[in-house]
């Protein structure tokens, strides 16, 4: 907490390190650019340390994934990537069900994402813009169900899937996640502000049915929020662990259950395990690097509304 001792500066030029900013008018508070204090070198140093701590385990995983087993545990430790990444990847695909797992995870996460975005937008539209009896109460129910820890119903859910003959099938993972309370509420909050009533009224006057209004007015307006929801949903589905672990078996795994199987085996080959972990991380990492700004924005907006 030492950084708090910096003075609150209203005039950046008055500070010793402020000379590179002297040409500019000082920005005021409340513009969303922070609390007004300029970040000094100490703040940057702390943030860089935080960043390093955040990134290191992921980086380390890629380092190990590119080494031979005997490089692990050397003193001093090897901290830079080696040249064996592709050998190790080949080994993972050779010795485990990882190719199948990647395909399965892609099917599961892709289907869930499309479905959650579609049904959430539809329901969010109804809750935000259509009048019907019980709307308020039903919305409260949606919000309240968010707080319910679904996974505690895992035993009857498993019994049910066995009865359906879905145990160890992908639909057992997909179907329960087709639409989520979070998605419905998220889209409602966005559409409430993004779609003006006048536009819907005009559409009605022109004889549009509700469904046509949805397709031609709501869906185009919903795109930015739908994209953020899609990113969140895909990453959540990709990383989902508990339920796939329960209902799928090792012959038909997702990436996460394949990792679990690998960790539960008797392999002491860390390069194999961490190569698999790295492969499992790549898709979410790519999404995160490409859309990090939107994801950060989604979390911060959700925080304000929640």
């Amino acid at each position, binding site marked *: 907490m030492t950084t708090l001792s910096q003075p609150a500066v209203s005039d950046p030029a008055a500070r010793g390190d402020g000379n590179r900013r002297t040409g500019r008018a000082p920005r005021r508070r409340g513009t969303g650019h922070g609390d007004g204090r300029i970040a000094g070198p100490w703040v940057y140093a702390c943030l860089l340390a935080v960043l390093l701590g*955040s990134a290191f385990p992921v980086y380390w995983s890629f380092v190990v994934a590119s080494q031979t087993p005997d490089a692990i545990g050397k003193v001093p430790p090897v901290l830079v990537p080696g040249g064996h990444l592709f050998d190790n990847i080949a080994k993972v695909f050779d010795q485990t069900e990882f190719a199948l797992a990647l395909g399965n995870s892609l099917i599961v996460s892709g289907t869930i994402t499309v479905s959650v975005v579609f049904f959430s937008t539809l329901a969010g539209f109804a809750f935000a813009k*259509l009048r*019907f009896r019980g709307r308020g109460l039903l919305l409260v129910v949606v919000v309240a169900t968010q707080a319910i820890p679904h996974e505690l119903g*895992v035993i009857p859910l498993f019994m049910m899937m066995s009865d359906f003959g879905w145990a160890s099938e992908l639909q057992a993972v997909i179907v329960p996640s087709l639409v989520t309370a979070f998605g419905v509420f998220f889209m409602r909050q966005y559409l409430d502000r993004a779609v003006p009533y006048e536009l819907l009224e005009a559409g009605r006057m022109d004889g549009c049915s*509700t469904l046509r209004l949805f397709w031609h007015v709501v869906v185009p307006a919903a795109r930015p929020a739908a994209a953020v929801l899609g990113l969140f949903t895909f990453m959540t589905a990709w990383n989902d662990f508990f339920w796939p672990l329960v209902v799928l078996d090792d012959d038909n795994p997702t990436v996460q259950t394949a*990792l679990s199987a690998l960790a539960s085996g008797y392999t002491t080959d860390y390069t194999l395990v961490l190569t698999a972990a790295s492969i499992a991380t790549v898709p979410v990492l790519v999404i995160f690097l490409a859309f990090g700004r939107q994801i950060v924005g989604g979390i911060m907006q959700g925080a304000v509304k929640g």
Partner: protein
Amino acid sequence: MTTTTPPRSGAATSADTSPPRRRDRWYRWDVRLSPYLYIAPYFVIFGVFGLYPLLYTAWVSLQERALNDPEGAHWVGLDNYTRLLFHDPYFWNAMGNTISLWLLTTIPQILLALWIAQLLNRRLRSRTLFRMGVLLPNVTSVAAVTLIFAQLFGRDFGLINLALDAFGLGKIDWVAGTASSQVALAVMVVWRWTGYHALVFLAAMQAIPGSVYEAATIDGASARQQFWHITIPMMRSAIVFATIISTTGNMRLLAEPLLFAGGVASGGSDRQFQTGALYLYETAFRQFDFGYGSAIAMLLLIAILLVTGVNYLVTRRIRTD
């Protein structure tokens, strides 16, 4: 965006002049009933795959029931609960671990997140880079992260032990000890969630109107005073919210302790880091004791709902203050 096409408005006027009763009825049906159709998917999915299993858990928890003989399920009343509460040291062990893990994760996590949030709340260059950087741990998968940390905390070849050894502190068998294993798990949880909470806190900080700080600055309050007397009090509900997320998250902790022990569901040889959720998993899906597992699930549910309910009351009280 107004893709309502002109020709259709012509159709609508002609429909107004002729007496199309059917169209009217259709319109009324559309306006009145279609909203229910649009929200139905959520309620159907939630009802069938969320609520029903949860309610049925209560029913199963009153039975003795195993996977292989569904016909052999029989009614035992509250026996599962009395066994759990009064004769099951494993259950209380798991609850105790949940509490110590709570202390080891929630407090450092919230303090760290507050510290990071106020760093991020400065006028920064490359703001987005730093915000993304702190969030990175949160988007990686639990399974992958646990495997990475299991290596880092490895007894013989782990990087952390190599470092300890280099400083002459000796190697620690992280998985074996109660305190050391829980510290290792806490590091994973804190690493994963601190950045997320920091962003939530940052949003709460930025929602505080700048005029409040301006007034304080004019009155001569230092940055430190402003942080403790303005920022923290105005973020109380965000802090309570984070505490609850962290608390209920801890009760559901499963992947970390499972994979840290190499897939063994007991949470270490002495159950030194078995959590409530892991005990549920072990009972139901390693021993296939569904009745007893359901009773564990019900007690966890009650605990989580209690915590959430208390949170709700506390938050409401804070908001009305």
